[in-house]
């Protein structure tokens, strides 16, 4: 009995060591792919330019259309996520679309495993979404008087998990649409039903944080947000093999 227990214990430890080594290697190669994407982005400005232009244009249009009118607090909170959603639609598909358009996706298939590719692209999109959302939030706070957050902790949680959710969803959708013919149309069409539940919760949480609702009261919405992220990342890793190959 003791011998069996010891051998099971030993094999379990060996498996853990092997898995840790394997995941450390995937992490390293994913980081390398992220660095390659970042260097490529800095040189080509594939996504950054369109994101920056979109942020400037949408916020300007909202500002001009409002004029001197006083808009409700909730509307400004909702509009914040509308700007985030459409900005994400304008630039985040580039992670995979640029590889496909330039014909380099075959090269990626030859040098990296699907999990490495997905992780690398996800890290890149996470950084891009966070930077984009920080810029939008700062511009929004500076330009819209009605956008006043009373519970910063609740808004920060919504901001953090919302950005993660947007990055995961847009990365996997970008991989799906990259091989399609009319990518430009397909991306927002496919993203809308997938991102809609996320955007609705984010609007609700923003409204709560503008009302000054306590973090405990908004806990259920934050939990739903975390669940969305976990479901999306699990589904993405499981499905990516099939999306990436063939």
């Amino acid at each position, binding site marked *: 009995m003791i011998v069996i227990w010891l051998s099971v214990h030993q094999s379990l430890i060996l498996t853990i060591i092997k898995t840790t080594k394997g995941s450390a*290697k995937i992490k*390293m*190669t994913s980081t*390398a*792919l992220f*660095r*390659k994407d970042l*260097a*490529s982005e800095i*040189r*080509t400005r594939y996504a950054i330019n369109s994101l920056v232009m979109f942020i400037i244009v949408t916020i300007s249009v909202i500002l001009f259309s409002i004029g001197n009118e006083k808009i409700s607090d909730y509307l400004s909170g909702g509009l914040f996520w509308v700007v985030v959603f459409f900005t994400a639609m304008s630039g985040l598909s580039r992670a995979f679309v640029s590889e496909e358009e*330039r*014909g*380099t996706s*075959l*090269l990626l*298939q*030859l*040098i*990296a*495993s*699907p*999990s*490495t590719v997905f992780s*690398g692209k996800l890290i890149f999109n996470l950084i891009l979404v966070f930077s984009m959302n920080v810029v939008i939030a700062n511009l929004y706070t500076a330009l819209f008087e009605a956008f006043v957050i009373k519970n910063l902790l609740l808004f920060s949680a919504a901001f953090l998990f919302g950005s993660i959710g947007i990055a995961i969803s847009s990365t996997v959708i970008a991989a799906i649409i990259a091989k399609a013919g009319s990518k430009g149309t397909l991306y927002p069409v496919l993203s809308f039903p997938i991102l809609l539940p996320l955007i609705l919760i984010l609007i609700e949480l923003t409204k709560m944080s503008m009302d000054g609702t306590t973090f405990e009261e908004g806990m259920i919405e934050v939990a739903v947000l975390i669940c969305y992220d976990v479901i999306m990342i699990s589904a993405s890793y499981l499905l990516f093999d099939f999306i990436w*190959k*063939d």
Partner: protein
Amino acid sequence: MNNYSLTIDSITKTFGRRLIFKNVILKCEENGIWGIAGPNGSGKSTFVKCLCGIISPTRGKVIHSLNNKEIEPEKLHNHIGFVSPYLVLYDEFSAEENLHYFAEIRGVKYNKEKIDYLLNEFLLYDRRSDFVKAYSSGMKQRLKFIFALMHSPELVILDEPISNLDNSGKEKVYKIVNEEAKNSVIIIASNDDSDLALCSSILDLNNYKND
């Protein structure tokens, strides 16, 4: 000693209702050069993509083994080198940057000694810091050979290897292919007689077209 073996176990590939090839069987257990022949559109590129695991065969299996153990699909890319005219390198990076990123993404050591040797052999050493977008199509093809051989893979797949190359480039490729064949399994998919003359055994895909 390389104990790599490739077993193609009766693979069939169809695109919709169109049959590309049927029940292809091949076993490469020894180092050397193997040829895949067939006219344009006969499915040579599809066949080599099946060997690399880029596309899956409709039926049958491709088994890559090292020391009698099947190589996991997740790690297969580290054991294969691939050259083809439709392979595109990153234009915005220099040749050296491309090779550095490939090594890092593969998770293998950047073997400077081997890469410098290959850069010299393919006459790209002096241009290694230039952006790939400034390269001619022949130079890009030569860089693809370095990309395929830099990590000393057990299997090297060359699809139309001499396209875009001038006579001196072709000779250089044949010399390197013969050298590499001592330590690796090399598969050449081509309809060029001079390419196929290097092969010890040739599989003609035209013989695998019957329904």
